[in-house]
């Protein structure tokens, strides 16, 4: 039928996507459910709620409605938080349909790559290391443990012996392997070469960085991490936090620490540089630095020092130096302007993240060059 020729659903789909992203029809924005992409991270899987925009109707209050179900269960036993017949969080949202999807991190990275049209990252030069040895069962031997018996090869051997010795009867093909027929799998050691890469996250945890700013950093670095992991097989992550002093922390502390006090960005850069020089020789490693701050440095002298370090210590050594500036009500945001005006290198990317909605664009800016 001719009406299958057109792809008219695409225009309706685009229209819907624009509404969800708040580009058109702001009046519908309040009906958008489940905007945030990372819901929970349980094990390997992440839930991505699929957004819906539900037009209001006269409807019953779901919480008070209840329903009829089928199966086992004592009185008072939970039947799940899902609303009856509706795939949705009970009553906590405006809309009733929030479908949650569990996807593995690999799939997630793929989706992210497609969604943002991210290029594959090209590794810098020949930075390969022998990373691991693997035992692979690819060979065959005449001796070995019973658990490694290769039935097919054993049968084949017995069949050959039968045919050769003229004992094979096509009408009654009975093959009984004897000890000499038995074959075993044997292992071979292989070496895998991989590219090594390290991401160093630096975050400003001075008093001016509030919970909202940290949430933005957390979300953004989660996505960056997910993408980078899909690009490099082995990747290390290091975390540095700083206020007036810098120190290395683990991932949890990185997101949860709230220090107070001033901001001396050069302290973090110095620590970062020291880390690179001691442990990640630029000749062998792909190095990525992501620095998040509200852009309020202690003094302009320190800023000069920072810019000098970026230009002379980072640019020649790393694949990417990314600076993301998070909007905060205390920050002056001067650092972004300084770095943009004084550093000119395609290894340095800056991005301004005013709110959660900007995370999307910011990731695209950072990773869009495929470096």
């Amino acid at each position: 039928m001719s009406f299958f020729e057109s792809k008219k659903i695409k225009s309706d789909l685009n229209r819907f996507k624009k509404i969800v992203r708040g580009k058109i029809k702001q009046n519908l924005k309040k009906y958008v459910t489940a905007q945030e992409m990372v819901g929970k991270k349980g094990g390997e899987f992440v839930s991505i709620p699929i957004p819906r925009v539900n037009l209001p109707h006269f409807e019953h209050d779901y919480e008070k409605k209840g329903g009829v179900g089928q199966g086992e269960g004592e009185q008072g036993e939970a039947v799940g938080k899902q609303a009856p017949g509706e795939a949705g969080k009970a009553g906590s949202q405006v809309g009733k349909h929030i479908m949650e999807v569990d996807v593995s991190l690999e799939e997630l990275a793929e989706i992210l790559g497609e969604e943002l049209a991210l290029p594959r990252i090209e590794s810098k030069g020949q930075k390969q290391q022998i990373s691991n040895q693997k035992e692979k069962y690819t060979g065959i031997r005449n001796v070995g443990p019973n658990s490694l018996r290769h039935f097919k090869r054993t049968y084949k051997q017995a069949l050959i012996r039968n045919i050769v010795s003229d004992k094979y009867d096509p009408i009654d093909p009975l093959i009984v392997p004897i000890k000499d027929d038995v074959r075993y799998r044997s292992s071979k050691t292989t070496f895998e070469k991989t590219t090594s890469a390290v991401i160093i996250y630096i975050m400003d945890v001075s008093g001016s960085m509030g919970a909202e700013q940290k949430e933005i950093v957390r979300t953004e670095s989660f996505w960056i991490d997910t993408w980078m992991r899909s690009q490099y097989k082995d990747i290390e992550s290091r975390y540095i936090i700083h206020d007036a002093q810098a120190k290395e922390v683990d991932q949890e502390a990185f997101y949860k620490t709230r220090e107070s006090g001033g901001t001396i960005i050069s302290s973090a850069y110095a620590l970062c540089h020291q880390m690179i020089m001691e442990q990640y020789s630029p000749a062998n490693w792909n190095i990525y630095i992501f620095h998040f701050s509200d852009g309020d440095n202690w003094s302009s002298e320190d800023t000069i020092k920072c810019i000098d370090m970026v230009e002379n210590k980072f640019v020649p050594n790393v694949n990417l130096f990314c600076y993301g500036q998070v909007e905060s009500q205390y920050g002056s945001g001067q650092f972004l302007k300084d770095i943009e005006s004084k550093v000119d290198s395609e290894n340095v990317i800056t991005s301004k993240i005013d709110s959660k909605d900007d995370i999307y664009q910011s990731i695209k800016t950072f990773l869009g060059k495929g470096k």
Partner: protein
Amino acid sequence: MANLPIELAKAKEGIEKIARSYGLDFFKTIFEMLDYEKLNEVAAYGGFPTRYPHWSFGMEYDQLSKGYEYGLSKIYEMVINNDPCYAYLLKSNPLVDQKLVMAHVYGHGDFFKHNYWFSQTDRRMIDTTANHASRVRKYIDQYGYAIVEEFLDVCLSMDNLIDPHSVFIQRKKITAEKNKLNEKKKNPFDLPDEKNRKETVQDQKYDFSDDPVKDILFFLIEHAPLENWQRDILQIVRKEAYYFAPQGQTKIMNEGWASYWHSKMMTEHILTPSEVIDYADHHSGTLATSPGKLNPYKIGIELFRDIEDRWNKGKYGKDYDECTDMREKANWNQETGKGREKIFEVRKIYNDVMFVDEFFTEEFCLKHKLFSFEYNPETTQYEVFSRAFSTIKKKLLFSLTNRGQPFIFVKDANHEGKKKLLLWHKHAGIDLKIDWAYATMENIYKIWKRPVYLETMVDEKGKILIFDGKEHTSKSIESEEAKK
């Protein structure tokens, strides 16, 4: 059937014959093979690839295709109530699934053709939706995308305010005459506009409190000050809502009937030995139950089987009902053999409410382990509430009555003598979702253009919600009044 592979065309021919041999009767059925993208697209449009453009279809498509890509859900089949009947098959399905779907589709086809509640539906709906779409496109060309879309949003927000039973009522004469008048006009949609509203309303009585109007969309089409194109769009939305209403009224029966027949035909005639396992896997997946959700396929097929069994054994009538010995009842068999006849009768005249009301018995409830659940605010989850038959049945019937929607009526179109619109929510034990009620009232205001009042009950107290075009207010009323 040029587009079906030979293997399937043959299967279709065979299955159609088998279906007819059981007494199923359906319109000519055309099967189309589609890949999943196309099938999702058709499904997003509610089965009609030619529907008018609107983002909500894009949203459905987004959900369906993501569901498919993430391996969560898959549409196996779609069937359209139309003459000829259109059914869509998913290209990537194995042969045994295609056969199952075809058998299932013939069950639906028979139901569409013979169930009373479908008797008033438009059997040329594929053409009708295409006409609707071209009209909407014309208005888009004329008035702009954003304006028409905005108005569609408003209309779609009230597409449940119809009265599915009204299609069986002979319209009042005055309407029939009006329609005749309209036919004489060049533009059939040239109903009274803003200028004529006063006269029209003066002709009418305002106060409907003796006989509240449930078809609010029809009321607005007749009386609201709309431009012609707006009135036409509202008519389109109403017409499509009426077309889909019987499917909501007979969900359990329709799916139950189709599942009953696919299982009968597959197991008695169609399956080859090598297909049995795949069929069983698929079939049990379709009928799977989960605690928080009632599967209409499961309840439907089991009810039909139960009815057939009862009428085969004479488990009905005065003697059976009055028998108190459970063992005797269980072993009751008078070999009446009227089962098949009975289920054909049931599929002809019942809808879900009647079906459950009459055939959902205590024995059935017990056998299938049904329970009712309620929301517990303390634990913020739904919990098993009761396994008592009467509670469950009441709850089940409630969820089916008026397709689970609240009853909303027009009570007075000249409230306080100022042409304010007074709506009335007939409270049946459950409150409205208040934020949505207000939002819907805003949309009704956009059509009525005068303040909108809604009489309802909140926490067992009578209340009137008011939207005057600028802000929301509310006032309490005597609860007896609200109950009326």
